[in-house]
Protein backbone atom coordinates (compact mmCIF):
# COMPACT_ATOMS: atom_id res chain seq x y z
CA UNK A 1 0.00 0.00 0.00
CA UNK A 2 2.78 2.42 0.94
CA UNK A 3 4.57 1.69 -2.37
CA UNK A 4 1.50 2.80 -4.29
CA UNK A 5 1.26 5.95 -2.19
CA UNK A 6 4.93 6.68 -2.86
CA UNK A 7 4.34 6.30 -6.61
CA UNK A 8 1.41 8.69 -6.40
CA UNK A 9 3.55 11.23 -4.55
CA UNK A 10 6.29 11.03 -7.16
CA UNK A 11 3.72 11.74 -9.87
CA UNK A 12 2.37 14.76 -8.01
CA UNK A 13 3.90 18.06 -9.05
CA UNK A 14 2.99 19.87 -5.83
CA UNK A 15 4.53 17.15 -3.68
CA UNK A 16 7.73 17.10 -5.76
CA UNK A 17 8.06 20.88 -5.57
CA UNK A 18 7.54 20.69 -1.79
CA UNK A 19 10.09 17.90 -1.42
CA UNK A 20 12.70 19.76 -3.48
CA UNK A 21 12.26 22.96 -1.45
CA UNK A 22 12.49 20.94 1.75
CA UNK A 23 15.68 19.19 0.67
CA UNK A 24 17.17 22.59 -0.19
CA UNK A 25 16.39 23.92 3.30
CA UNK A 26 17.79 20.80 4.97
CA UNK A 27 20.97 21.17 2.89
CA UNK A 28 21.26 24.81 3.96
CA UNK A 29 20.83 23.83 7.59
CA UNK A 30 23.42 21.02 7.41
CA UNK A 31 26.02 22.40 4.98
CA UNK A 32 25.63 25.95 6.28
CA UNK A 33 27.02 24.96 9.66
CA UNK A 34 30.24 23.86 7.92
CA UNK A 35 30.66 26.99 5.82
CA UNK A 36 29.48 29.46 8.47
CA UNK A 37 30.57 27.95 11.77
CA UNK A 38 30.52 31.33 13.57
CA UNK A 39 28.32 32.36 16.47
CA UNK A 40 25.20 34.10 15.07
CA UNK A 41 25.10 36.37 18.16
CA UNK A 42 28.66 37.66 17.75
CA UNK A 43 29.57 40.92 16.04
CA UNK A 44 31.15 39.74 12.80
CA UNK A 45 31.40 42.83 10.64
CA UNK A 46 30.48 46.51 10.40
CA UNK A 47 26.82 47.07 11.37
CA UNK A 48 24.00 47.61 8.84
CA UNK A 49 25.81 46.24 5.78
CA UNK A 50 23.40 45.65 2.89
CA UNK A 51 23.50 42.30 1.10
CA UNK A 52 26.35 42.36 -1.41
CA UNK A 53 28.19 45.25 0.26
CA UNK A 54 30.89 42.96 1.62
CA UNK A 55 31.61 39.44 0.31
CA UNK A 56 32.40 38.36 3.89
CA UNK A 57 28.75 39.00 4.82
CA UNK A 58 26.85 38.01 1.68
CA UNK A 59 23.43 38.65 3.24
CA UNK A 60 24.54 41.73 5.15
CA UNK A 61 24.66 42.47 8.87
CA UNK A 62 22.15 43.83 11.37
CA UNK A 63 22.40 46.88 13.63
CA UNK A 64 24.73 45.01 16.03
CA UNK A 65 26.99 43.86 13.19
CA UNK A 66 25.77 40.27 13.46
CA UNK A 67 26.10 38.26 10.25
CA UNK A 68 22.66 37.55 8.79
CA UNK A 69 23.77 34.52 6.74
CA UNK A 70 25.04 32.81 9.93
CA UNK A 71 21.77 33.65 11.65
CA UNK A 72 19.82 32.22 8.71
CA UNK A 73 21.62 28.86 9.02
CA UNK A 74 20.92 28.74 12.75
CA UNK A 75 17.30 29.70 12.07
CA UNK A 76 16.88 26.93 9.51
CA UNK A 77 17.93 24.36 12.12
CA UNK A 78 15.59 25.83 14.76
CA UNK A 79 12.64 25.98 12.36
CA UNK A 80 13.02 22.38 11.21
CA UNK A 81 13.62 21.08 14.74
CA UNK A 82 10.67 22.93 16.26
CA UNK A 83 8.45 22.07 13.27
CA UNK A 84 9.06 18.33 13.40
CA UNK A 85 9.20 17.98 17.19
CA UNK A 86 6.02 19.93 17.92
CA UNK A 87 4.12 18.27 15.07
CA UNK A 88 5.17 14.95 16.61
CA UNK A 89 3.85 15.94 20.06
CA UNK A 90 0.69 17.27 18.47
CA UNK A 91 0.17 13.97 16.60
CA UNK A 92 0.84 11.96 19.77
CA UNK A 93 -1.69 13.89 21.88
CA UNK A 94 -4.22 14.06 19.05
CA UNK A 95 -4.00 10.33 18.31
CA UNK A 96 -4.37 9.45 22.01
CA UNK A 97 -7.45 11.65 22.48
CA UNK A 98 -9.03 10.67 19.17
CA UNK A 99 -8.31 6.95 19.50
CA UNK A 100 -9.63 6.64 23.06
CA UNK A 101 -12.71 8.75 22.28
CA UNK A 102 -13.54 6.96 19.04
CA UNK A 103 -12.84 3.50 20.42
CA UNK A 104 -14.64 3.67 23.78
CA UNK A 105 -17.33 6.23 22.84
CA UNK A 106 -19.82 7.02 25.65
CA UNK A 107 -18.68 9.19 28.54
CA UNK A 108 -14.98 8.80 27.73
CA UNK A 109 -15.65 10.25 24.30
CA UNK A 110 -17.90 13.01 25.65
CA UNK A 111 -15.29 14.03 28.23
CA UNK A 112 -12.38 14.02 25.79
CA UNK A 113 -14.37 15.94 23.18
CA UNK A 114 -15.26 18.65 25.73
CA UNK A 115 -11.54 19.13 26.37
CA UNK A 116 -10.89 19.20 22.63
CA UNK A 117 -13.57 21.87 22.15
CA UNK A 118 -12.05 23.89 24.98
CA UNK A 119 -8.69 23.89 23.25
CA UNK A 120 -10.38 24.98 20.03
CA UNK A 121 -12.14 27.90 21.72
CA UNK A 122 -9.03 29.32 23.36
CA UNK A 123 -7.11 31.44 20.85
CA UNK A 124 -4.23 29.08 20.07
CA UNK A 125 -1.51 31.63 19.66
CA UNK A 126 -2.47 33.47 22.86
CA UNK A 127 -2.33 30.17 24.76
CA UNK A 128 1.08 29.41 23.25
CA UNK A 129 2.27 32.88 24.30
CA UNK A 130 1.03 32.32 27.87
CA UNK A 131 2.63 28.86 28.10
CA UNK A 132 6.00 30.05 26.82
CA UNK A 133 5.93 33.17 29.02
CA UNK A 134 5.00 31.23 32.17
CA UNK A 135 7.48 28.39 31.66
CA UNK A 136 10.38 30.62 30.50
CA UNK A 137 11.21 30.97 26.79
CA UNK A 138 13.40 28.19 25.35
CA UNK A 139 13.34 25.85 22.37
CA UNK A 140 11.90 23.08 24.55
CA UNK A 141 9.03 25.16 25.94
CA UNK A 142 8.27 26.43 22.42
CA UNK A 143 8.07 22.84 21.14
CA UNK A 144 5.75 21.78 23.94
CA UNK A 145 3.61 24.92 23.81
CA UNK A 146 3.08 24.61 20.05
CA UNK A 147 2.40 20.87 20.37
CA UNK A 148 -0.15 21.45 23.13
CA UNK A 149 -2.11 24.11 21.24
CA UNK A 150 -2.26 22.32 17.88
CA UNK A 151 -3.55 18.80 18.52
CA UNK A 152 -7.38 19.23 18.36
CA UNK A 153 -7.82 18.83 14.55
CA UNK A 154 -5.78 15.60 14.67
CA UNK A 155 -7.90 14.31 17.56
CA UNK A 156 -11.12 14.96 15.63
CA UNK A 157 -9.74 13.29 12.52
CA UNK A 158 -8.58 10.16 14.37
CA UNK A 159 -11.82 9.99 16.34
CA UNK A 160 -14.01 10.02 13.23
CA UNK A 161 -11.79 7.41 11.57
CA UNK A 162 -11.99 5.20 14.68
CA UNK A 163 -15.77 5.55 14.89
CA UNK A 164 -16.06 4.09 11.39
CA UNK A 165 -13.26 1.53 11.69
CA UNK A 166 -14.42 -0.01 14.98
CA UNK A 167 -17.58 -1.30 13.25
CA UNK A 168 -15.67 -2.99 10.44
CA UNK A 169 -15.54 -6.77 10.10
CA UNK A 170 -11.79 -7.18 10.49
CA UNK A 171 -12.00 -5.45 13.85
CA UNK A 172 -14.88 -7.67 14.88
CA UNK A 173 -12.80 -10.68 13.79
CA UNK A 174 -9.83 -9.55 15.84
CA UNK A 175 -12.11 -8.93 18.81
CA UNK A 176 -13.61 -12.41 18.46
CA UNK A 177 -10.10 -13.84 18.57
CA UNK A 178 -9.85 -12.31 22.04
CA UNK A 179 -7.49 -9.48 21.23
CA UNK A 180 -7.06 -6.99 24.09
CA UNK A 181 -8.21 -3.39 23.67
CA UNK A 182 -4.71 -1.83 23.56
CA UNK A 183 -3.57 -4.39 20.98
CA UNK A 184 -6.77 -3.89 18.98
CA UNK A 185 -6.23 -0.13 18.94
CA UNK A 186 -2.53 -0.23 18.16
CA UNK A 187 -2.33 -3.07 15.64
CA UNK A 188 -5.75 -3.08 13.95
CA UNK A 189 -7.32 0.36 14.05
CA UNK A 190 -4.42 2.78 14.23
CA UNK A 191 -2.55 1.67 11.09
CA UNK A 192 -5.75 2.21 9.10
CA UNK A 193 -6.38 5.63 10.61
CA UNK A 194 -2.83 6.83 10.10
CA UNK A 195 -2.69 8.12 6.47
CA UNK A 196 -4.81 11.25 7.07
CA UNK A 197 -2.79 11.90 10.25
CA UNK A 198 0.36 12.02 8.12
CA UNK A 199 -1.23 14.65 5.88
CA UNK A 200 -2.40 16.81 8.76
CA UNK A 201 1.00 16.44 10.44
CA UNK A 202 2.75 17.88 7.38
CA UNK A 203 0.40 20.87 7.59
CA UNK A 204 1.01 21.02 11.36
CA UNK A 205 4.75 21.31 10.74
CA UNK A 206 4.05 24.33 8.54
CA UNK A 207 1.85 25.96 11.18
CA UNK A 208 4.37 25.14 13.92
CA UNK A 209 7.17 26.87 12.00
CA UNK A 210 4.97 29.95 11.60
CA UNK A 211 4.06 29.90 15.30
CA UNK A 212 7.68 29.54 16.41
CA UNK A 213 8.64 32.49 14.20
CA UNK A 214 5.79 34.56 15.66
CA UNK A 215 6.77 33.69 19.24
CA UNK A 216 10.40 34.65 18.76
CA UNK A 217 9.34 37.77 16.86
CA UNK A 218 7.46 38.85 20.00
CA UNK A 219 10.60 38.29 22.07
CA UNK A 220 9.56 34.87 23.37
CA UNK A 221 12.29 32.98 21.55
CA UNK A 222 15.08 31.04 23.21
CA UNK A 223 17.49 33.79 24.37
CA UNK A 224 20.46 31.59 23.39
CA UNK A 225 19.30 30.40 19.98
CA UNK A 226 19.05 32.62 16.90
CA UNK A 227 15.89 31.87 14.95
CA UNK A 228 14.34 33.55 11.92
CA UNK A 229 11.68 35.19 14.06
CA UNK A 230 14.38 36.59 16.37
CA UNK A 231 16.20 38.20 13.45
CA UNK A 232 12.94 39.81 12.26
CA UNK A 233 12.10 40.95 15.79
CA UNK A 234 15.56 42.50 16.21
CA UNK A 235 15.34 44.28 12.88
CA UNK A 236 11.84 45.67 13.18
CA UNK A 237 12.95 49.03 14.59
CA UNK A 238 15.02 49.71 11.46
CA UNK A 239 12.63 48.05 9.03
CA UNK A 240 11.90 51.15 6.96
CA UNK A 241 15.59 51.98 6.46
CA UNK A 242 16.94 48.44 6.19
CA UNK A 243 14.14 46.16 5.13
CA UNK A 244 16.53 43.35 4.14
CA UNK A 245 17.12 42.45 7.83
CA UNK A 246 13.45 41.49 8.21
CA UNK A 247 12.93 40.65 4.54
CA UNK A 248 15.43 37.80 4.15
CA UNK A 249 14.31 35.64 7.11
CA UNK A 250 10.69 36.30 6.18
CA UNK A 251 11.23 34.92 2.69
CA UNK A 252 12.94 31.88 4.24
CA UNK A 253 9.91 31.26 6.47
CA UNK A 254 7.66 31.64 3.43
CA UNK A 255 9.66 29.06 1.46
CA UNK A 256 9.78 26.45 4.25
CA UNK A 257 6.10 26.80 5.10
CA UNK A 258 5.23 26.64 1.40
CA UNK A 259 7.31 23.45 1.10
CA UNK A 260 5.40 21.69 3.89
CA UNK A 261 2.03 22.95 2.61
CA UNK A 262 2.78 21.63 -0.89
CA UNK A 263 3.98 18.36 0.56
CA UNK A 264 0.82 18.03 2.65
CA UNK A 265 -1.37 18.83 -0.33
CA UNK A 266 0.52 16.33 -2.47
CA UNK A 267 0.22 13.63 0.20
CA UNK A 268 -3.49 14.36 0.45
CA UNK A 269 -3.93 13.92 -3.30
CA UNK A 270 -1.86 10.76 -3.23
CA UNK A 271 -3.93 9.27 -0.41
CA UNK A 272 -7.29 10.27 -1.94
CA UNK A 273 -6.74 9.74 -5.67
CA UNK A 274 -10.49 9.91 -6.34
CA UNK A 275 -10.54 13.56 -5.24
CA UNK A 276 -7.73 14.37 -7.61
CA UNK A 277 -9.69 15.99 -10.42
CA UNK A 278 -11.25 18.84 -8.51
Amino acid at each position, binding site marked *: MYRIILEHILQNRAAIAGLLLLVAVILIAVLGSFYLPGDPWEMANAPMLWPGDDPDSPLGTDIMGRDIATGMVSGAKVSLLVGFASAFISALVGITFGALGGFYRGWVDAFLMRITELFQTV*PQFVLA*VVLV*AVFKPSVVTAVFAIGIVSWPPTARLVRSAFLVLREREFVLAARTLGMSDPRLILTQLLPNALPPVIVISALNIATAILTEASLS*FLGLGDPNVMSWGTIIGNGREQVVDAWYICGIPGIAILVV*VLAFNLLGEGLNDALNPQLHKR
Partner: protein
Amino acid sequence: MSSSHFPTVLKFLRRRLWLAVPVIAGIAILNFLILQLAPGDVVDVLAGEAGAATPEYMAQLRTEFGLDRPIYVQLVFYLKSVFTLDLGFSFRQNMPVLTLILDRLPATLLLMLTAMGIALVAGLALGVISSLYVHRWADRLIAVFVLITYALPTFWLGLMAIVLFSGRLGWLPSGNMTDISADYTGLTYAWDVTRHAILPAATLATFYLAVYAKLVRTAMLESYGADFIRTARAKGATETRITLFHALRNALLPLLTMLGLQVSSILSGAVLVESVFSWPGLGRLAFESILARDLNLLLGILLFSSVVVTLINICVDAVYAFLDPRIELQH
Protein backbone atom coordinates in the same frame (compact mmCIF):
# COMPACT_ATOMS: atom_id res chain seq x y z
CA MET B 1 -36.15 39.06 10.15
CA SER B 2 -39.76 39.73 11.06
CA SER B 3 -40.78 40.77 14.54
CA SER B 4 -42.49 37.43 15.27
CA HIS B 5 -39.01 35.82 15.16
CA PHE B 6 -37.68 38.06 17.85
CA PRO B 7 -38.60 36.10 20.99
CA THR B 8 -37.08 32.99 19.37
CA VAL B 9 -33.83 34.84 18.92
CA LEU B 10 -33.87 35.94 22.55
CA LYS B 11 -34.54 32.40 23.72
CA PHE B 12 -31.75 31.13 21.50
CA LEU B 13 -29.33 33.69 22.91
CA ARG B 14 -30.30 32.87 26.49
CA ARG B 15 -29.81 29.16 25.99
CA ARG B 16 -26.50 29.60 24.18
CA LEU B 17 -25.23 31.94 26.88
CA TRP B 18 -26.00 29.30 29.51
CA LEU B 19 -24.11 26.73 27.44
CA ALA B 20 -21.13 29.09 27.39
CA VAL B 21 -20.81 28.94 31.20
CA PRO B 22 -19.15 25.48 31.35
CA VAL B 23 -16.82 26.51 28.52
CA ILE B 24 -15.69 29.56 30.46
CA ALA B 25 -15.32 27.45 33.60
CA GLY B 26 -13.18 25.02 31.59
CA ILE B 27 -10.94 27.82 30.42
CA ALA B 28 -10.64 29.10 33.97
CA ILE B 29 -9.61 25.60 35.08
CA LEU B 30 -7.01 25.53 32.31
CA ASN B 31 -5.67 28.85 33.58
CA PHE B 32 -5.59 27.44 37.10
CA LEU B 33 -3.63 24.40 35.90
CA ILE B 34 -1.08 26.64 34.18
CA LEU B 35 -0.73 28.62 37.41
CA GLN B 36 -0.24 25.43 39.41
CA LEU B 37 2.39 24.05 37.04
CA ALA B 38 4.26 27.33 36.77
CA PRO B 39 7.58 27.69 38.53
CA GLY B 40 7.13 29.44 41.90
CA ASP B 41 3.78 29.52 43.69
CA VAL B 42 0.52 30.96 42.39
CA VAL B 43 0.97 34.24 44.19
CA ASP B 44 4.41 34.81 42.67
CA VAL B 45 2.84 34.50 39.23
CA LEU B 46 -0.29 36.48 40.03
CA ALA B 47 1.53 39.38 41.62
CA GLY B 48 4.04 39.58 38.82
CA GLU B 49 7.67 38.55 39.04
CA ALA B 50 10.55 40.59 40.41
CA GLY B 51 8.56 41.89 43.36
CA ALA B 52 6.38 44.54 41.78
CA ALA B 53 3.80 43.90 44.50
CA THR B 54 4.25 44.82 48.15
CA PRO B 55 5.09 41.94 50.53
CA GLU B 56 1.93 42.75 52.53
CA TYR B 57 -0.26 42.29 49.48
CA MET B 58 1.52 39.02 48.60
CA ALA B 59 0.89 37.73 52.12
CA GLN B 60 -2.74 38.78 51.87
CA LEU B 61 -3.07 37.01 48.51
CA ARG B 62 -1.54 33.83 49.96
CA THR B 63 -4.21 33.72 52.66
CA GLU B 64 -6.94 34.59 50.16
CA PHE B 65 -5.92 31.74 47.90
CA GLY B 66 -5.50 29.46 50.89
CA LEU B 67 -2.22 28.08 49.62
CA ASP B 68 -2.04 25.90 52.73
CA ARG B 69 -5.38 24.32 51.90
CA PRO B 70 -6.18 21.39 49.58
CA ILE B 71 -5.93 22.09 45.88
CA TYR B 72 -9.64 21.78 45.15
CA VAL B 73 -10.37 24.54 47.68
CA GLN B 74 -7.88 26.72 45.85
CA LEU B 75 -9.62 25.88 42.57
CA VAL B 76 -12.99 26.90 44.00
CA PHE B 77 -11.48 30.19 45.17
CA TYR B 78 -10.05 30.81 41.75
CA LEU B 79 -13.30 29.97 39.92
CA LYS B 80 -15.22 32.21 42.28
CA SER B 81 -12.96 35.15 41.55
CA VAL B 82 -13.20 34.53 37.80
CA PHE B 83 -17.00 34.41 37.83
CA THR B 84 -17.23 37.57 39.89
CA LEU B 85 -15.06 39.12 37.16
CA ASP B 86 -12.23 39.66 39.59
CA LEU B 87 -9.20 39.02 37.39
CA GLY B 88 -6.74 40.49 39.86
CA PHE B 89 -4.54 43.55 39.81
CA SER B 90 -1.72 44.46 37.45
CA PHE B 91 1.09 46.02 39.46
CA ARG B 92 3.05 46.97 36.37
CA GLN B 93 0.18 49.06 35.00
CA ASN B 94 -1.21 49.91 38.45
CA MET B 95 -4.78 49.09 37.41
CA PRO B 96 -7.22 46.20 37.78
CA VAL B 97 -6.74 43.65 34.99
CA LEU B 98 -10.39 43.82 33.98
CA THR B 99 -10.27 47.62 33.50
CA LEU B 100 -7.14 47.31 31.38
CA ILE B 101 -8.75 44.64 29.22
CA LEU B 102 -12.07 46.44 28.79
CA ASP B 103 -10.17 49.60 27.82
CA ARG B 104 -8.44 47.78 25.00
CA LEU B 105 -11.30 45.57 23.84
CA PRO B 106 -13.06 48.04 21.47
CA ALA B 107 -9.88 48.54 19.42
CA THR B 108 -9.43 44.78 19.00
CA LEU B 109 -13.07 44.26 18.07
CA LEU B 110 -12.85 47.08 15.53
CA LEU B 111 -9.74 45.55 13.99
CA MET B 112 -11.21 42.01 13.94
CA LEU B 113 -14.54 43.05 12.45
CA THR B 114 -12.94 45.25 9.78
CA ALA B 115 -10.54 42.44 8.85
CA MET B 116 -13.40 39.91 8.71
CA GLY B 117 -15.37 42.29 6.49
CA ILE B 118 -12.47 42.79 4.10
CA ALA B 119 -11.74 39.05 4.04
CA LEU B 120 -15.37 38.16 3.34
CA VAL B 121 -15.92 40.70 0.57
CA ALA B 122 -12.58 40.20 -1.18
CA GLY B 123 -12.67 36.43 -0.64
CA LEU B 124 -16.14 36.20 -2.16
CA ALA B 125 -15.07 38.33 -5.12
CA LEU B 126 -11.93 36.29 -5.81
CA GLY B 127 -13.79 33.01 -5.30
CA VAL B 128 -16.53 33.99 -7.74
CA ILE B 129 -14.00 35.17 -10.34
CA SER B 130 -12.08 31.90 -9.92
CA SER B 131 -15.21 29.81 -10.41
CA LEU B 132 -16.31 31.80 -13.47
CA TYR B 133 -12.93 31.34 -15.17
CA VAL B 134 -12.03 27.81 -14.02
CA HIS B 135 -8.58 26.73 -15.20
CA ARG B 136 -8.11 29.99 -17.11
CA TRP B 137 -5.37 32.49 -16.24
CA ALA B 138 -7.41 34.48 -13.70
CA ASP B 139 -8.16 31.27 -11.79
CA ARG B 140 -4.50 30.18 -11.94
CA LEU B 141 -3.32 33.58 -10.72
CA ILE B 142 -5.70 33.44 -7.78
CA ALA B 143 -4.56 29.88 -7.01
CA VAL B 144 -0.92 31.03 -6.82
CA PHE B 145 -1.94 33.97 -4.64
CA VAL B 146 -3.78 31.61 -2.28
CA LEU B 147 -0.83 29.23 -2.10
CA ILE B 148 1.63 31.99 -1.21
CA THR B 149 -0.75 33.65 1.25
CA TYR B 150 -1.15 30.37 3.15
CA ALA B 151 2.58 30.39 3.82
CA LEU B 152 3.05 34.08 4.66
CA PRO B 153 3.89 34.95 8.27
CA THR B 154 1.26 37.60 9.15
CA PHE B 155 3.61 39.76 11.20
CA TRP B 156 6.15 39.78 8.39
CA LEU B 157 3.52 40.79 5.85
CA GLY B 158 2.63 43.69 8.16
CA LEU B 159 6.25 44.80 8.41
CA MET B 160 6.67 44.69 4.65
CA ALA B 161 3.43 46.65 4.22
CA ILE B 162 4.87 49.31 6.52
CA VAL B 163 8.06 49.41 4.44
CA LEU B 164 6.11 49.87 1.21
CA PHE B 165 3.05 51.95 2.11
CA SER B 166 4.38 54.10 4.96
CA GLY B 167 8.11 54.12 4.25
CA ARG B 168 8.54 54.24 0.48
CA LEU B 169 5.20 55.61 -0.66
CA GLY B 170 4.23 57.52 2.46
CA TRP B 171 0.53 56.90 1.85
CA LEU B 172 -0.56 55.52 5.20
CA PRO B 173 0.53 55.83 8.83
CA SER B 174 2.66 52.96 10.16
CA GLY B 175 1.22 52.62 13.63
CA ASN B 176 -1.20 53.57 16.39
CA MET B 177 -4.92 54.07 15.97
CA THR B 178 -5.07 57.87 15.77
CA ASP B 179 -2.76 60.75 15.04
CA ILE B 180 -1.58 61.62 18.55
CA SER B 181 -0.44 65.16 17.69
CA ALA B 182 -3.79 66.12 16.13
CA ASP B 183 -7.00 66.50 18.09
CA TYR B 184 -9.72 65.40 15.69
CA THR B 185 -13.42 65.13 16.43
CA GLY B 186 -16.43 63.81 14.56
CA LEU B 187 -15.91 62.91 10.91
CA THR B 188 -12.25 63.89 10.77
CA TYR B 189 -11.66 61.56 13.72
CA ALA B 190 -13.43 58.70 11.96
CA TRP B 191 -11.36 59.34 8.82
CA ASP B 192 -8.17 59.39 10.88
CA VAL B 193 -9.02 56.03 12.50
CA THR B 194 -9.90 54.60 9.07
CA ARG B 195 -6.54 55.66 7.64
CA HIS B 196 -4.77 54.02 10.58
CA ALA B 197 -6.88 50.88 10.33
CA ILE B 198 -6.32 50.14 6.64
CA LEU B 199 -2.88 48.52 6.90
CA PRO B 200 -3.45 46.41 10.04
CA ALA B 201 -6.92 45.28 8.93
CA ALA B 202 -5.74 44.40 5.42
CA THR B 203 -2.74 42.52 6.85
CA LEU B 204 -4.92 40.52 9.21
CA ALA B 205 -7.48 39.88 6.46
CA THR B 206 -5.02 38.50 3.87
CA PHE B 207 -4.81 34.93 5.16
CA TYR B 208 -8.57 34.55 5.66
CA LEU B 209 -9.24 36.15 2.31
CA ALA B 210 -7.26 33.34 0.68
CA VAL B 211 -9.10 30.68 2.69
CA TYR B 212 -12.49 32.12 1.71
CA ALA B 213 -11.55 32.50 -1.96
CA LYS B 214 -10.65 28.81 -2.13
CA LEU B 215 -13.79 27.81 -0.26
CA VAL B 216 -16.15 29.94 -2.36
CA ARG B 217 -14.61 28.62 -5.57
CA THR B 218 -15.26 25.01 -4.52
CA ALA B 219 -18.77 25.76 -3.26
CA MET B 220 -19.69 27.67 -6.43
CA LEU B 221 -18.38 24.92 -8.71
CA GLU B 222 -20.33 22.34 -6.72
CA SER B 223 -23.58 24.29 -6.85
CA TYR B 224 -23.30 24.86 -10.63
CA GLY B 225 -23.94 21.14 -11.02
CA ALA B 226 -26.97 21.14 -8.70
CA ASP B 227 -30.59 20.68 -9.73
CA PHE B 228 -31.81 24.07 -8.53
CA ILE B 229 -29.35 25.83 -10.84
CA ARG B 230 -30.61 23.77 -13.78
CA THR B 231 -34.17 24.72 -12.80
CA ALA B 232 -33.21 28.40 -12.66
CA ARG B 233 -31.60 28.14 -16.10
CA ALA B 234 -34.69 26.37 -17.46
CA LYS B 235 -36.86 29.20 -16.14
CA GLY B 236 -34.75 31.57 -18.20
CA ALA B 237 -32.81 33.32 -15.45
CA THR B 238 -29.76 35.21 -16.72
CA GLU B 239 -26.28 33.90 -15.92
CA THR B 240 -25.60 36.96 -13.73
CA ARG B 241 -28.73 36.29 -11.74
CA ILE B 242 -27.85 32.62 -11.39
CA THR B 243 -24.35 33.47 -10.20
CA LEU B 244 -25.35 36.14 -7.71
CA PHE B 245 -28.71 34.95 -6.38
CA HIS B 246 -28.60 31.18 -6.72
CA ALA B 247 -25.05 29.85 -6.63
CA LEU B 248 -23.47 32.54 -4.46
CA ARG B 249 -26.21 32.45 -1.86
CA ASN B 250 -25.55 28.77 -1.33
CA ALA B 251 -21.82 29.33 -1.19
CA LEU B 252 -22.37 31.69 1.74
CA LEU B 253 -23.21 28.89 4.17
CA PRO B 254 -19.91 26.99 4.13
CA LEU B 255 -18.25 30.41 4.28
CA LEU B 256 -20.06 31.25 7.47
CA THR B 257 -19.25 27.86 9.00
CA MET B 258 -15.59 28.51 8.26
CA LEU B 259 -15.82 32.01 9.74
CA GLY B 260 -17.25 30.59 12.97
CA LEU B 261 -14.41 28.07 13.19
CA GLN B 262 -11.82 30.77 12.64
CA VAL B 263 -12.89 33.37 15.18
CA SER B 264 -10.30 32.23 17.70
CA SER B 265 -7.60 32.11 15.05
CA ILE B 266 -8.47 35.66 13.90
CA LEU B 267 -8.09 36.83 17.49
CA SER B 268 -4.69 35.14 17.63
CA GLY B 269 -3.75 36.91 14.43
CA ALA B 270 -4.92 40.23 15.87
CA VAL B 271 -2.42 39.82 18.72
CA LEU B 272 0.44 39.68 16.23
CA VAL B 273 -0.87 42.38 13.91
CA GLU B 274 -1.50 44.74 16.81
CA SER B 275 2.03 44.38 18.10
CA VAL B 276 3.38 45.12 14.63
CA PHE B 277 1.23 48.23 14.12
CA SER B 278 1.12 49.42 17.77
CA TRP B 279 -2.67 49.11 17.51
CA PRO B 280 -3.88 49.80 21.07
CA GLY B 281 -5.93 46.62 21.53
CA LEU B 282 -5.74 43.37 23.50
CA GLY B 283 -2.84 42.11 21.39
CA ARG B 284 -0.76 45.16 22.08
CA LEU B 285 -1.64 44.76 25.77
CA ALA B 286 -0.49 41.14 25.57
CA PHE B 287 2.77 42.27 23.95
CA GLU B 288 3.31 44.86 26.68
CA SER B 289 2.63 42.28 29.38
CA ILE B 290 5.13 39.89 27.76
CA LEU B 291 7.78 42.60 27.85
CA ALA B 292 6.94 43.42 31.48
CA ARG B 293 6.58 39.70 32.40
CA ASP B 294 3.14 40.57 33.79
CA LEU B 295 1.81 37.01 33.76
CA ASN B 296 -1.41 37.72 35.60
CA LEU B 297 -2.42 40.24 32.97
CA LEU B 298 -1.49 37.73 30.27
CA LEU B 299 -3.68 35.05 31.86
CA GLY B 300 -6.52 37.56 32.10
CA ILE B 301 -6.18 38.32 28.39
CA LEU B 302 -6.25 34.59 27.60
CA LEU B 303 -9.42 34.11 29.63
CA PHE B 304 -11.13 37.17 28.27
CA SER B 305 -10.25 36.54 24.64
CA SER B 306 -11.72 33.02 24.97
CA VAL B 307 -14.92 34.59 26.26
CA VAL B 308 -14.96 36.96 23.27
CA VAL B 309 -14.53 33.99 20.91
CA THR B 310 -17.44 32.18 22.56
CA LEU B 311 -19.69 35.24 22.27
CA ILE B 312 -18.82 35.93 18.61
CA ASN B 313 -19.49 32.28 17.83
CA ILE B 314 -22.99 32.61 19.27
CA CYS B 315 -23.59 35.59 16.96
CA VAL B 316 -22.29 33.63 13.96
CA ASP B 317 -24.70 30.79 14.77
CA ALA B 318 -27.60 33.24 14.92
CA VAL B 319 -26.66 34.69 11.50
CA TYR B 320 -26.35 31.15 10.15
CA ALA B 321 -29.92 30.36 11.16
CA PHE B 322 -31.03 33.63 9.58
CA LEU B 323 -29.36 32.79 6.24
CA ASP B 324 -30.50 29.18 6.11
CA PRO B 325 -34.19 28.88 6.98
CA ARG B 326 -33.84 25.10 7.19
CA ILE B 327 -31.94 25.53 10.44
CA GLU B 328 -34.18 26.49 13.30
CA LEU B 329 -32.89 28.32 16.31
CA GLN B 330 -34.62 25.94 18.68
CA HIS B 331 -32.37 23.01 17.77
